[in-house]
């Protein structure tokens, strides 16, 4: 079971960053950098550890511990806003 955006949440990439938008509440979250990279990987197939592995490969300069913290913080924030679900 992977992580996915619920049906009422849209992720849209912009030239610099991206937007996660809840169409029911109007809540909008702007993402850039690693957060944008995480959003790209939220596809209903990948699980948390698979996303982390891909981030480690894409952002080797950041370090695994920091990436794991950033990933968990971001996923928690999305969950708290009902912008993430296990699918």
């Amino acid at each position: 079971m992977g992580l996915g955006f619920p049906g009422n949440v849209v992720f849209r990439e912009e030239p610099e960053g991206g937007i996660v938008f809840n169409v029911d509440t109007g809540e909008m979250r702007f993402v850039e950098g690693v957060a944008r990279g995480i959003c790209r990987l939220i596809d209903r197939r990948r699980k948390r550890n698979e996303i982390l592995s891909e981030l480690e490969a894409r952002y080797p300069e950041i370090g695994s511990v920091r990436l794991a913290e950033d990933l968990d913080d971001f996923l928690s924030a999305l969950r708290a806003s009902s912008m993430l679900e296990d699918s």
Partner: protein
Amino acid sequence: MLAPGEWARILDRLVEARLLSVTVGGGEPFTRPDIASILSEVASRPLRFSVNTNATLIGRREAALLASFRPRLDSVTVSLDGPDAETHDRVRGSGAFDAALGGVECLLAEGIRPGFRCTVSTLNAGCLAEVVDLALEMGDWIILNPFLESGPCLPAGLSLDPRAFRESCEAALELAERRKGRVTGTLVEMAADARAFGSGRNRGAGDRRKGHSCGGCANIVTVLPDGGVAPCDHLVSLRLGSLPGSSLSAIMESDAARAFRARVEAPLAENPECAECFFFDACSGGCPAIPWNLPGPLGPDPLSCLKRYFEASRPEESARR
């Protein structure tokens, strides 16, 4: 007129382009007998949406329909062009005021507090305070925009002359300050820009490369009743492409769309009238809808032009500069 099935395909194209919100407007959307189907198609997709209406055709059934789309329904904006039947009906036709208020009552009964939009023209500029009072009594907010002489089938003689325009802007700003956050619109913005200029806050902060401050074909796009795509609803004769035959992304990258953006983003300094203007650095560029159809380089928007604004009724202010 496209059938709901065609609109469903158009909506799929909008979703595919990751559009986040749409506004269903017209003309008047409730003149369509199939409006319920179309709104249902909108609401069944990951889109937030608003409805612009004159409210004359909104009864209990229509209001209940709109209420059923919450929370995805963002807002309902009702046209209100006067504080009484005499003024409003002069703009919108006999009986429109009473019918609109009836529609608003139905919305309120369903728990929908609408917003309002007043198009300020020679017919109603003298009663802005009363319009605002009525709107905020019934709803949450009101937008005060000037009548824009751009588009098909527009009656003549509704545009405010420079003096009346400036007076309306000043009145709108005063109303906005009294009703914090509930009165907005380009009249308010214009008076605020002028006041900021007068106090020196926006002088010298300009960008010589800037063009018109237009979101058309960048942040917004208008889909016409036949599926045609225009940069905005003030430039409906400018067809950029057609949905659903093409994707919205392809239309936005078309030669017509690129040409539109290039023209509106061309530096105002290329326009001789603007290049030497005392107010250039504080100028917002404004909307290109009015100058669009004039020949030559895209000129200034008269409704955003600080020079015109300051010269309107107090020539001594301009003479001192």
